[in-house]
């Protein structure tokens, strides 16, 4: 019984150790990839910003729904890449969504929240 459990532990530990060794080696030679390519997300937010600056807040609110859909459906894919960075963008996203979806959106708040979201997309490592 004990011998079996030890055998199982060894059988699991050996590939884990080999894999970890390889990962550590691979990472030391490559630069951190962060969340990957976020340009598609930035493009949507820059659309929203353009609409908001023109004062078209309802158009901006409509366009940010595209962002919400894209961001939510990408969660499974990008969240594991970097939890903290993903969280920074997600909280900036929540702020921007609530600013635009307020009963009476305040243009100044909307612009600020969108700028913060864009900043988070440009540098996800910085908490907003």
């Amino acid at each position: 019984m004990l011998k079996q459990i030890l055998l199982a532990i060894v059988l699991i530990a050996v590939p884990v150790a080999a894999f970890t060794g390889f990962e550590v080696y691979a990472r030391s030679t490559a630069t951190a990839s962060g969340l990957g390519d976020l340009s598609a997300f930035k493009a949507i937010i820059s659309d929203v910003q353009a609409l908001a600056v023109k004062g078209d807040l309802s158009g901006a609110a409509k366009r940010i729904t595209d962002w919400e859909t894209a961001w939510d459906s990408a969660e499974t894919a990008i969240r594991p890449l970097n939890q903290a960075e993903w969280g920074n963008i997600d909280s900036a996203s929540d702020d921007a969504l609530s600013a635009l979806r307020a009963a009476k959106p305040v243009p100044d708040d909307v612009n600020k929240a969108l700028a913060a979201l864009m900043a988070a997309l440009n540098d996800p490592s910085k908490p907003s």
Partner: protein
Amino acid sequence: MTTATLADAASIRPGPMTVFNRVPKVTADFWLIKLMAVTMGETAADYINVQLGLGLTLTSLIMSGVLAAALVWQFSQRRYVPAPYWLGVVLISVVGTLVTDNLVDTFGVPLLVTTIGFSIALAATFIVWFMSERTLSIHSIFTTRREAFYWLAILFTFALGTAAGDLVAEQFSLGYLATGILFGMIIASLAIGYFFLGLDPILGFWLVYILTRPLGASFGDLLSQPHQYGGLGLGTIITSAVFLAVIAGIVAYMSFRHEGEEVVVVDE
């Protein structure tokens, strides 16, 4: 898969001393279909959750109801019948994924806590199972009580596999391909242990059963997620539908061949 199976099936005649095992024999097809069921469970849970927009909690409740109905169907069988058995596995896979996602996303339970919690739950299931039945054999599931232990263990292996897989992927920021390779390597190592080093079949079976969950899930994500995140971009609908079709095909084939059926000789 061999002609021996056909001969076995033909010779299955339950006498006074023999009964049918209610769960399948572990064959290559068993692992193939189990792996596909978990892959589909992951992509289908994603699809139901994201696309239908019912919210994680409502989705979990509805799917749990469907699972309960499937298990009633399975428990009403007195022998292994592929359709209800594999429907149960596919639905446990979907519900197990939803429950773990729900605990993490809605209730904010850390993955480390769910991983440890499900490990304890699974260990407790095995301990009570052994104390009650004096065996953990999957070749003599011929009472409703044993079958209940079996399915409870299956449920916890899925929940544990989901939590442990997500934990590894997130904690170490591994992509799905790397996660898949890692779990594939561990499974290969356990297979070597079973075939060459005398690893206990039942211990090996349950360990691999846990580990095929994260392997299948990373495979599903790899197929369904968009190119920009390193996936193949097939989407969750197509991936789920293709896998469901293949699973249905294998289940039909198994039913036709009576593959996986097993009789148990009762001592007393």
